């Protein structure tokens, strides 16, 4: 595969009347990348994918595939294959004819179509089902046929719109691994829409996190999880979500510390600065139970959830809710008072107004990234 599969979105915007569904999104999707468009429903991720596919014209901005501006090319002329959420299999055609459909549209010789369909069916374990109609297939089989129809074309890039959302949990995990494996084997560019953070974390080479039509953060799964760019990113990824508490950064004895009525956490930065209100974020799995008398977050356990290998303790600190996640048993009981602590590198600070991440730059006051 050549560099042709690089997809560039330059300021793509889509408005429906007064509603802006996608707002000035710039993305450079490298050849061979598995980019996941992640976000809650209504964040514009499917609209963005449909614009890349050519099924929806952008209101503003341009789209480039390789060096070509494809903003105004109809979908059938873009070298892109799409897998739909509903699979969109043609109900009147057999599995073989469904998979061969894009090739017949391209007027390939029959023998070649048959050979390609057979090869794709072989990789997806569909050979025994080739003569069946879609209504005679299970959800997982339909999903594989939809994948096959995309694969058979050998397209410049694959677009997938929540392809696993109609599968049950067990099948989803299996298919997730299959798609990731497929991506490794083909080395093809994939743009994958989902609202499921597990799919995003496990399959993506990069995640584009969207909120209200805007690109909130772009980065590898580890970057997005470990250094969330905003409160939204911090609370969208992770289960349970990151705890976010109101606090103030104070200078105590020459080091910085996050304080509030029930909070006293050192930030591990030796510096002085004027007091500044912040939002303090810490992931449930990074909280540990401190010995009594140590500084930390004072909280009362309100409930314990058993996840099998782990437990989640739901706590209340003042008016805020705090979740703690750890190996089962955590050894806490409902109603127990605790002090929770976390290492300084696991604490995240966000601006109160904008919600953007704050980083410490020596010689300056903390500034928005």
């Amino acid at each position, binding site marked *: 595969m050549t560099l042709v599969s690089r997809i560039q979105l330059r300021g793509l915007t889509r408005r429906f009347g007064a509603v802006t569904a996608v707002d000035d999104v710039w993305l450079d999707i490298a050849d061979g990348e598995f980019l996941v468009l992640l976000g809650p429903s209504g964040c514009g991720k499917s609209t963005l994918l449909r614009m890349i596919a050519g099924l929806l014209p952008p209101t503003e901005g341009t789209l480039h595939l390789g060096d070509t501006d494809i903003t105004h090319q109809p*979908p059938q002329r873009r070298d*892109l294959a799409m897998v739909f959420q509903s699979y*969109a299999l043609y109900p009147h055609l057999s599995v073989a004819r469904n998979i061969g459909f894009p090739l017949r549209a391209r007027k390939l010789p029959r023998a070649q179509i048959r050979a390609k369909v057979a090869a794709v069916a072989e990789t997806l374990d569909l050979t025994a089902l080739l003569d069946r109609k879609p209504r005679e297939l299970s959800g997982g089989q339909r999903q594989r046929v939809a994948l096959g129809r995309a694969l058979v074309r050998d397209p410049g890039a694959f677009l997938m719109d929540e392809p696993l959302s109609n599968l049950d949990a067990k099948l989803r995990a299996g298919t997730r691994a299959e798609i990731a494996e497929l991506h490794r084997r083909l080395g093809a560019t994939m743009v994958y829409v989902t609202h499921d953070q597990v799919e995003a974390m496990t399959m993506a080479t990069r995640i584009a996190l969207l909120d209200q039509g805007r690109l909130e953060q772009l980065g590898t799964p580890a970057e997005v999880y470990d250094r969330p760019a905003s409160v939204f990113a911090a609370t969208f990824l992770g289960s349970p979500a990151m705890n976010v508490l109101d606090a103030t950064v104070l200078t105590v004895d020459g080091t910085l510390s996050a304080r509030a009525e029930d909070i006293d956490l050192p930030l591990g930065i030796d510096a002085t600065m004027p007091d500044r209100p912040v939002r303090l974020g810490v992931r449930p799995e990074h909280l540990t139970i401190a010995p009594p008398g140590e500084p930390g977050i004072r909280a009362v356990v309100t409930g314990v959830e058993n996840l099998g290998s782990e437990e989640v303790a739901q706590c209340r600190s003042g008016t805020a809710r705090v979740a703690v996640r750890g190996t089962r048993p955590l050894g806490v009981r409902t109603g127990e008072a605790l002090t929770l602590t976390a290492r300084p590198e696991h604490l995240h600070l966000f601006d109160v107004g904008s919600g953007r991440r704050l980083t410490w730059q020596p010689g300056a006051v903390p500034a928005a990234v």
Partner: protein
Amino acid sequence: MTTDEAVGEGSRARRLGGHLVLGVLSLLCAFPVYWLYATSLRAPEDVYSLSVLPWPLSTASYAEAFATSDVLGMLLNTGVVAVLSALGQLLIALLAAYAFAAWRFPFRRLLYLLFVGTWLVPFQATMLPNYVLLSRLGLLETLAGVIIPTLCSALGVLLLREHLNGFPKELLDAARMDGRSSWSTLWTVVVPALRPALAALGILLAITAWNEYFWPAMVLQRSNAVVQLGLRSFLGTEGNDWGPLMAMAGLACLPVFVLYLVLQRHIVNAFVRSGLK
């Protein structure tokens, strides 16, 4: 004792009663058709007989019908009119409904309402302008004159658009992604999926065109080119020629029965599915 009946299915007597009512109703519906064929098969002197069974059987009425008029020619002409009119209406309705359902264009709703609104204009209001137009075009006394003004069917557009509205849009998108143009999507994806609806509509339109009397009577005036007009020749001021009349009417019904038998499966499908949507 237990049975497999659902709870509250009622007693055996009630079910029997229901079947009895349905049986009587279907007899009532079938009787005129039976009487038509029975009369056509009576000997000429028994035509007014009230015996339920036509005995002795005679084909004299059929022979007379064939001898006095060109029955086969008329059946053929009527067939041509019915088939061309139905196919033409189907094609135009399909294209219009596809455009209305799958495309976004300015004034779409208004145009659709106007289109469907023509359904409300009664035949009596359009028959004279149509007649004058045909006369200017020199199409009076021709089968083309009978067919052409019927080609645009608001009913067809309405029905097919309703079916297409329930058609998953993702399939249209998928076909476009798979490299089909809009035109090719229509024939490779939409039409196969709409087959039951098209069959149901087609049979409805064909039967309507087959049974049409008034419009062909206007356009074809003096000639008896279609079978419904041919029937006139057995109705006279001195009395009706019941035997050949019934024979010809019986022959005129046959193609409709055959059409229904062939397409029945599709029709039942179409009605069942439109109920499930």
